[in-house]
């Protein structure tokens, strides 16, 4: 039997490195020339982005008629992708805010990256509602401003709640990320000798000078932001779930949607963070900072959230039967056995079955296994949204108005493009800013805090 020593706290960073070596290993990659691997990676992602841009261009030129959406499935890939990407973003805030409040110190090494991912994912997500309006240049009408029509937006519509939720989420995530970056930018400013970079870092770091009087307020602000980001992240996916759940569509209107969506969002987000981190720690050679222990903990979170999602699937089925409502019952049978059954079973397999591997420590700590499972989870969570959006719409109350949804190549092109955008931004980010929070990692090193509190 494996013996764990519970009397000591496991270190966040392996090998007890010195403060200056942390600087080195995190900042070094920014100062060296990009490797060939990076160029290959960014060309692939730029190609994907280009495919998306062309598809989007055609959509804008000709209109959303080029998509696969039609009656009765009026929400297709656009909304599926929107929900998917917003969900991806949630892991970032969870890691940076909720785990911060829970004082999980292992979060420090992955928080910066996860926050950046949140911002990029929300950017990808925000794209879809904007373009699915058909005439995105009129999206200004989504904002409540006194316009010449003397009309106001409908504040009681969940679609407008989305506008508020996603824009608030984006702003607060950006602020949170930036606040975390300020000390690191100051460190970069003090380190660089390049004049142009120095100017840029000086402007961005606002003149931060690592002052103890500032750290005090800074930590307070960080705590407050974390305290706000936590309910915010719940509210965002809750409101996304309201888009569906306040309706009376069978399969959409069910009260478990808010927590179920949040759990699913965290689940898929962790999978995405996991995927990208595995690559980054390898390429950057920072395996001692983003340790296997950290990845294992993330796998545990994935196992837990995966089971929450499974619980929701089961509850939906049970209550659909229990409700005695034949339409509700039909919708769920239709999900499992109807024309989109393949999507449903893909979802169940990827989201509920594969993560069960993480019950075993061997698989939790195996990089290839966790990488593959995380990919499956991403696929499964995408299909979850597909199942929710499409199966319900394609077969609603009236059999006379049933229809199938088949995405067009432009739908697929824009989906590829959103991945292109996401990865392009990530690749640019890892070349320009420290992927790990330097100040935070320094603060959790074993020798970096005074040995006897200091205040008594």
């Amino acid at each position: 039997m494996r013996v764990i020593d519970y009397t000591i706290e496991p270190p966040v960073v392996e090998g007890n490195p010195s403060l200056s070596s942390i600087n080195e290993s995190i900042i070094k990659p920014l100062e060296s020339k990009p490797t060939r691997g990076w160029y290959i990676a960014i060309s692939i992602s730029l190609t994907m982005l280009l495919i998306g841009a062309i598809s989007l261009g055609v959509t804008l030129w000709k209109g959303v008629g080029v998509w696969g959406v039609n009656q009765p499935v009026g929400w297709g890939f656009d909304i599926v992708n929107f929900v998917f990407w917003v969900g991806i973003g949630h892991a970032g805030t969870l890691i940076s805010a909720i785990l911060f409040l829970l004082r999980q110190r292992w979060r420090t090494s992955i928080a910066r990256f996860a926050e950046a991912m949140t911002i990029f994912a929300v950017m990808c997500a925000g794209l879809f509602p904007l373009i699915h309006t058909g005439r995105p240049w009129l999206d200004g009408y989504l904002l409540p401003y006194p316009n010449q029509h003397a009309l106001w937006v409908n504040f009681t519509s969940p679609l407008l709640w989305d506008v508020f939720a996603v824009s608030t989420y984006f702003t607060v995530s950006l602020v949170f990320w930036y606040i975390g970056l300020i000390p690191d930018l100051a460190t970069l400013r003090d380190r660089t000798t390049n004049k142009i970079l120095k100017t840029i870092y000086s402007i961005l770091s606002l003149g931060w000078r690592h002052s103890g009087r500032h750290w005090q307020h800074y930590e307070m602000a960080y705590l407050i932001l974390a305290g706000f980001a936590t309910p915010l992240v719940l509210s965002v996916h809750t409101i996304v779930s309201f888009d569906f759940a306040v309706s009376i569509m069978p399969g959409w209107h069910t009260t478990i949607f808010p927590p179920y969506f949040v759990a699913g969002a965290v689940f898929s987000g962790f999978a995405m963070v996991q995927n990208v981190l595995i690559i980054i720690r390898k390429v950057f050679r920072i395996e001692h900072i983003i340790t296997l222990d950290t990845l294992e903990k993330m796998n545990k979170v994935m196992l837990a959230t995966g089971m929450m999602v499974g619980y929701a699937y089961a509850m939906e089925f049970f209550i659909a039967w229990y409700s005695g409502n034949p339409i509700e019952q039909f919708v769920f049978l239709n999900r499992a056995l109807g024309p989109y059954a393949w999507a449903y079973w893909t979802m169940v397999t990827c989201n509920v079955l594969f993560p069960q591997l993480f019950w075993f420590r061997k698989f939790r700590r195996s990089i290839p296994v966790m990488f593959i499972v995380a990919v499956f989870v991403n696929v499964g969570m995408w299909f979850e949204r597909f199942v929710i959006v499409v199966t319900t719409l394609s077969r609603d109350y009236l059999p006379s108005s049933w229809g199938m949804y088949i995405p067009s190549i432009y739908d697929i092109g824009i989906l590829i493009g959103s991945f292109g955008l996401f990865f392009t931004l990530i690749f640019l980010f890892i070349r320009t800013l420290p992927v790990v929070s330097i100040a935070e990692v320094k603060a959790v090193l074993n020798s970096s805090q005074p040995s006897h509190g200091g205040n008594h």
Partner: protein
Amino acid sequence: MENKILYSVSGIFEDVNKLISAVKTVTDSGYTKFDVHSPYPIHGLPQAMKLKPSKLGWVTLVFGLSGALFAFLFMYWVNVIDYPLIVGGKPFYQLPAYVPVMFEVTVLSAAVFTVAWMLFIMFKFPNNSHPLIDTEYMRKVSVDKYGITIQASDPIFDLTRAKEFLQSLGASEVFEIYFRESNVKPKIFDKKFILFLGITSLIVSGVTYFILNHLLFMSPFNWMHEQFRLNPQSKLTFTKPETTNLTPVEGTVARGFLPYPYTDRPDLAEKNLINPLLPTEKTLKVGKEKYLTFCSPCHGNFGHGDSRLKGQFPNPPTLHSDKLRNMKDGGIYHIITVGQNIMPGYASQISSDERWAIVHYIRVLQRAINPKESDLK
């Protein structure tokens, strides 16, 4: 270098435990204008510096609550006062549906204002011209060293004493830090900066003007001025005709719509067409109604050509002229159908039978004004 003004004396410390005890000594020695610099936040440092707990929470509370209140009042005003609109059978004032937006606005306002307050009001950022910035001291504390800075403006400050004091506390290096000359004068009024502002504002306003007034009206930003759509019975232009059954067969005639063969031949119309209706009471009633609707605005209620439109159009001739009284029914029918001079044809608005009924009614009017001798008896 002649105007060098001392900002502070700063000492570097290597070890965090030593730093904390040094900070306690500094605090106890009565210095008030001093600061500690470290590459990361140190637990227990605020207590060692005897700092009061951060009051930032109050800023958050105030801005958060005002955000919630603002959102609530705004939505109430919009939904109940300014533009009440029933949506989904819900009342105008519906608190549960306001909660999500209230929550989001609260978070947005609290988070953004807390950070802005801290950075711009408490820290007075951006401040890149602070004397400590770009010094050897700063470069050290931003990597792995710790530093204590005693400012020259401290009431009990004395250069040599402060230096010795820091050394005695275990500082490995002690720096004297001076104001840079350029710090003293604010740079906001530099010509370069003002020029930069001016050019930026010009570019921004030009681009905004172009986007809002020109770009947005170019393709593909259509404003629904031109749309792909079918008018009833129109020809398909954007899909192959064989893919639909919308285009009628060549020469198809719609029911009840016989083609009118005399469009260009009023003489033949007058000669060949005969009123198919009898002037019954029913017919005349229809004729009167249609006359009053379509003819009377120009021709007047009794056909005198006294337009109700008061000269917006040239008045039409009276219907009681000899020419018209002697014209056969077919002639009048032709004029109603095809039009004459500026009078448009009414074929599309008035059905064939109704047109003949109007002709009967005109005959009635004519006989009423100029009765036949037999009528007068």
